[in-house]
């Protein structure tokens, strides 16, 4: 190692969005046949840098070189032609188009003869690519809108692979994927390396970064901090470089007692709905109830039925007083809050200011005689933004301009401000950096102490084990195992129940 030639280089990169300086004199060097990790806190400029390399944004100043040649893509199409391709952090597939159309969008030229598109050949090729990456369960004619969030991401992967890129940029994708999806991604990265190509990999999971990357470039607040070689990787050092201060190793709960409160706040009985097949469980006061399982085990539907979003075919969801919950409005009136996994589409209004997003659930509190009090609104938002350390210009900024992790914080702030007694969190730490993650975990512990209950649905088993009083594992829509905290379930034990 170390002797590989430099494939790509960026120097003196500057980029501002209004008054936000997203990048300040950032540099990056990518060698051939390597996976370069890009790591940093939320809003540190990772996505911005990656998007500039992929031609989505133009830098304010700075220069880039691809294989020694000056590289200056005008748009992402040009970047694709040069062999650079990016999987975005946010969902970027078109719901109303088929998988095949999504895979080849922008690159249909290959299938056009005398102006006419050969749809059949395109579908065949799409099937080939899907097969190649190991996602043959997706049919090229499937409308993306009918696919799951994860399968959508896999289609994006297929799109990237079909371009046969020299440089693949993967921005915070793993947290959207289940285990199988991740394996598919890792395999692609491995193949890229073997073929002499390179990957820029962005993730907040330090263990994953240490495991998969050859070198790591650390950004902090839009500044370049350092680049580490594989031999120098240490979780402690990486954390310190990222945050600029020491962060304790242990951010999960330290106690090993499960919640003993018998008071039931939410009861789900014999429910068949969506992917769920005869599910019963109850949530107690002051309990953190974790759900884990494989991607299509139906665990995401648990949150949806508990919030009344998905109506049940049979069975019922009841609150503490035994009243049924059948719609989100009913759930909210019983002080239940819900953050969906598909953040941009389901949990936020990205085309609205942060202020509106945070206040929307709490207008009752913020108004007097039917009029909203702006003073109260501002105070409310400032307090929450401060508590969660949301990185923003001001509360009037649009949510779509925030970095991925900061969007998640806005969604959380909404329900914290609402004062939910029961919080349903579906993949709450998706795209959140370790600093905030540990804040979030502390917050969950604090809420638990205040007697609030939490349903935690997560693809991250360590998180489920580390935070829950009780863990329920789902398999094919049924409960396959239940573990109390004092039983100290291990990851491998849970996996046995998942597959």
């Amino acid at each position: 190692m170390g002797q590989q030639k430099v494939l790509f280089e960026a120097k003196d990169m500057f980029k501002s969005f209004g008054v936000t300086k997203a990048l300040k004199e950032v540099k990056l060097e990518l060698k051939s046949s390597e996976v370069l990790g890009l790591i940093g806190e939320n809003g540190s400029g990772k996505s911005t840098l990656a998007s500039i390399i992929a031609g989505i944004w133009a830098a304010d100043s700075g220069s880039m070189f691809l294989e020694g040649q000056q590289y200056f893509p005008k748009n992402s199409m040009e970047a694709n032609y040069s062999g650079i391709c990016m999987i975005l952090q946010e969902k970027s597939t078109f719901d109303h188009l088929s998988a095949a159309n999504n895979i080849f969008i922008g690159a249909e030229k290959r299938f056009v003869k005398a102006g006419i598109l050969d749809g059949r050949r395109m579908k065949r090729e799409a099937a080939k690519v899907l097969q190649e990456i190991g996602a043959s369960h997706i049919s090229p004619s499937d409308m993306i809108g009918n696919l799951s969030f994860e399968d959508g991401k896999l289609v994006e992967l297929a799109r990237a692979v079909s371009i046969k890129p020299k440089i693949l940029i993967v921005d915070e994708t793993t947290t959207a994927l289940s285990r199988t999806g991740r394996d598919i991604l890792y395999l692609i990265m491995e193949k890229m390396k073997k073929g002499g190509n390179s990957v820029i990999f962005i993730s907040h999971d330090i263990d994953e970064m240490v495991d998969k990357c050859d070198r790591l470039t650390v950004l902090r607040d839009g500044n370049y901090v350092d680049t580490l070689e594989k031999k120098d990787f240490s979780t402690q050092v990486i954390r310190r470089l990222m945050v600029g201060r020491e962060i304790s190793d242990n951010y999960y709960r330290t106690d090993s007692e499960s919640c003993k409160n018998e008071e039931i706040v939410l009861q789900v009985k014999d429910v068949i709905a969506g992917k769920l097949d005869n599910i019963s469980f109850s949530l107690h006061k002051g309990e953190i109830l974790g759900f884990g399982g494989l991607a299509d085990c139906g665990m995401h539907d648990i949150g949806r039925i508990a919030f009344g979003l998905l109506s049940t075919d049979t069975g019922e969801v009841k609150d503490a007083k035994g009243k049924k919950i059948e719609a989100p409005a009913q759930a909210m009136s019983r002080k239940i809050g819900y953050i969906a996994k598909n953040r941009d589409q389901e949990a936020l209004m990205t085309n609205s200011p942060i202020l509106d997003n945070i206040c929307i659930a709490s207008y009752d509190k913020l108004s007097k005689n039917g009029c909203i009090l702006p003073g109260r609104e501002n105070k409310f938002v400032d307090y929450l933004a401060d508590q969660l350390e949301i990185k923003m210009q001001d509360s009037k900024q649009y949510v779509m301009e925030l970095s991925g992790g900061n969007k998640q914080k806005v969604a959380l702030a909404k329900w914290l401000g609402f004062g939910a007694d029961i919080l349903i969190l579906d993949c709450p730490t998706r795209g959140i950096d370790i600093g905030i993650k540990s804040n979030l975990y502390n917050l969950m512990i604090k809420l638990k102490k205040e007697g609030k209950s939490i349903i935690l649905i997560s693809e991250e088993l360590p998180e489920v084990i580390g935070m829950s009083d009780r863990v329920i594992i789902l398999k094919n829509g049924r409960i396959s195992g239940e573990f109390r905290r004092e039983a100290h379930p291990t990851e491998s034990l849970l996996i046995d129940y998942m597959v």
Partner: protein
Amino acid sequence: MDRNIINIIKLLLLPVGMFLIFTLIAPGFGFHSIPVIISQSIIQVVIGFGLSLLMNAELMDFSMGARTVFAAIFGGILSQSMGMPGLIFGCLAGAMFGALLMAVLYQYLKIPVMVVSLGIVMIYEVLGAKLTGSSGYLRIGSDIYQIGSYPNNIIILILSGVLCYILYYKMRIGCHITAVGNDEKMCRNIGVHADRVKFIAIMLTGVYCAIAAVLTICYSGAITASTGMGTLGIIFKPIMCVIIGRQMRKTLDNMPILIFIGGLCISIIFNGFIALGLPDALQDIVLGIFLIIVMGYSSNSKNITNFYRRLMTAK
């Protein structure tokens, strides 16, 4: 049998059913009405083809009626000196000019298409009226309007349907239009030029206005200029054709056929109620109710089947 053919037959049950009902209840309505029904639906279906491209890009345009009438007048005037080629050239030129003006206004001034289109309606109505002179009326020779009357109009309809199919499914522009309608920001990330795609979509509506213009002036051999937003009435039925068509898209992914079926339904309803002697105002009410029923059913079809399933499991 091919699944698509079965689905087409399923969808045809709607207009056929309505036809049979009217045949039973309305005296004077029957098989002899079919040519009228089809020929009346042709113009609105053709305009619907063009409009659906725009609606797919999540744009709304009210000016297609005005542009069609203007193009027809322009074509009619040219036909007086140049005959049939004049008619075709005039319709095409008038329609493309209309589309270009709209596309340019939208592109450079960034005014929403719907707003631009309303401005265009007023401008073109007045231009058309000026061209026809004080009578507001223009007649073309019977030798000329042959090309747009039966059975040529059927051929024109089929050809423009085929063109629509090709645009939708056999060219990259159709896919890009859908993508733009889906999410413009994402298009940018992926490298599809949303503005260029919309420009092309607007220009394509010009082609359909030109075809509709030829058909309109040949339908009765004359064209009347209308002012005071009168041409908005023309666009109302095509909008419904497209909306009905889009609602059936889950069953069959073939927009031109769906729009045609939508056009048939509307035409049957109108003719059926005329046969029943219903006054104009009431016809609009019936049409409105029909639209609500179709949309209501198809947007809730999942809930309706769920409801039935739950009823069954409850038993």
